[in-house]
């Protein structure tokens, strides 16, 4: 299979503390890759490095075929990012937010207009087009934030705990969007605490204390650790 992210011996140190200890893994084109770990295990540090928000201490990393040290500008055009913090501007309307990102990613305004109409129709949010983000329900905001993150049709989208603080029904709906993106060929790299979400991934890696302890499909991991669900797998690894 086609590798879209390759990471070899990624190390990130903050002084004497090693947040990422020789991480090595590959992500394949079009898959949903779950990046799991307890708080403080080093997930966020790793995802920030992959997005170019932070530089690694050492290691070879390629994103969409581009080197993370030398070709950051090319990487940026090919990735989308949605963080656990909210990533839309509350004092801008739905439409203004979409146009802003379209502008930043250099999408021609005619195309942006068409895509915006399409997107709002799909999300059933046409009525909210001129409403400020601050007045929308959290579920809508999250769906919109995700849609904006993939508005420029990136090759990879990084989601850092995208469903924090949302009820199970909304989460389920959010995952429908993720599947859809994946079906359209976008690789999804997602971190989460929710083990039910881990089941939705094609493959998951589980980090503990800065190291990747396990990496496989949810089915194989359950088999290997003799567990009924991902929750048990996680507890056996993270102890």
């Amino acid at each position, binding site marked *: 299979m086609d590798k879209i992210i390759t990471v070899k011996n990624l190390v990130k140190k903050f002084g004497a503390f090693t947040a990422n200890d020789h991480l090595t893994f590959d992500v394949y084109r079009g898959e949903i890759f779950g990046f799991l770990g307890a708080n403080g295990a080093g997930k966020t540090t790793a995802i920030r490095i992959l997005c170019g928000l932070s530089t690694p201490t050492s290691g070879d990393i390629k994103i969409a075929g581009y080197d993370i040290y030398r070709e950051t500008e090319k990487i940026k055009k090919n990735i989308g990012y949605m*963080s656990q913090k909210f990533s839309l501007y509350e004092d801008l309307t739905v439409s203004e937010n979409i146009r*802003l990102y379209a502008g930043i*990613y250099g999408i021609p305004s005619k195309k942006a207009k068409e895509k915006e109409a399409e997107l709002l129709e799909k999300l059933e949010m046409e009525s909210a087009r001129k409403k400020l983000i601050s007045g929308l329900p959290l579920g809508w905001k999250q769906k919109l934030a995700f849609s904006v993150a993939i508005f420029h049709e990136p090759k990879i989208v990084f989601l850092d705990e995208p469903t924090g603080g949302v009820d199970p029904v909304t989460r389920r709906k959010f995952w429908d969007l993720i599947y859809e993106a994946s079906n359209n060929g976008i690789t999804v790299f997602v971190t989460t605490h929710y083990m039910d979400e881990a089941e939705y991934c094609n493959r998951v890696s589980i980090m503990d204390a800065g190291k990747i302890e396990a990496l496989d499909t949810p089915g194989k991991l359950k088999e290997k650790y003799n567990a009924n669900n991902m929750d048990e797998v996680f507890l056996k690894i993270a102890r």
Partner: protein
Amino acid sequence: MKQLKSFIRKEFYHIFRDPRTIMVLFFIPIAQLLIFGTVIKNEIQDIHIAIYDQAKDETTQKITNKILSSGYFILEKNLENINDIESVFRLGKVKEVIVFESDFGEKLTKEGKANVQLIADASDPNMARLAISYTSGIINDYVKKMHPNLQLPMQLEPEVRMYFNEEMKSAYMFVPGVMALILMLISAMMTSISITREKELGTMEILLVSPLRPMQIIIGKVLPYLLLSIANAFVIVLMGRFVFGVPILGSFTLLMLETILFIAMALCLGIFISTVAKSQMTAMFISMIVLMLPTILLSGFIYPIENMPEVLQVVSHIMPARYFISIIRAIMLKGTGILFVWQETAVLIGMTLFFIALSVKKFKIRLE
């Protein structure tokens, strides 16, 4: 370019949709100008004076009585020695000393000309100026009534001397001062807050992940405030000119160029603050405590630098507003050109470059 345009449009949305920002940008400048403008034009009362009367004749006695009965002045002490003047000022209570030359009355009637010297403690320059003008007004008025045949104001020559601050530097000081203050407020504080807000909300990460370059982000943040600051500078200068009658003797173009330089410096300072501060609150605190207060107190805006303790005089050298105020004052009030303010201008350019270098270095490290 299109990227930058979308980004700048967003910044203007932020500015025009936040009532607090609107307040800071459009109402506070005018309010401050009016407040400082009117507060400084204060009335005087109960000024303690000392009189060194070398003549001790009828005329000087009458003038003295007239001054004391005016209600503005209280006689603290009659001096007997020229050396007492300095020491009586040092004690601090006496704000003005009136010196009549010997044979004052006689000279006035015979030669039609006599000297009276008014010495004021100009550590509060505004008060000193008022005291002097009140006193000379009273003296002139008396002489005019007593000797209507004399041609005034030629004959009586009040010789004015400002103690501690010879040049009376605070006249019209407040317009340049308020300008420095407002520009500092808008440029440094508002940019630093607007950048830290993005950090707090998490949107900065999104911007840094996007193809926008850090330099574009900075320019996009700074440009709206640059434009608004320039607009504010215009309003302040015009209000100073037409509401308070502060003249603009020098070149208006030079004035504006220097103002833009100062704004650029303050913007860079704001960017630097935002790279240090993690939250909007911190950014506001740093701007308030580290920028605003010293700008008000140490730049020579309200308290003349010459009167400060030496330590603070040294500290005032790192206040950008100090140089700006002195440039603006020179251009507006003295009508001087660039030849006379190039040193201050150079200092401001140096400071701007320093903060740019520092911010670029800091901003590169980004969000770690």
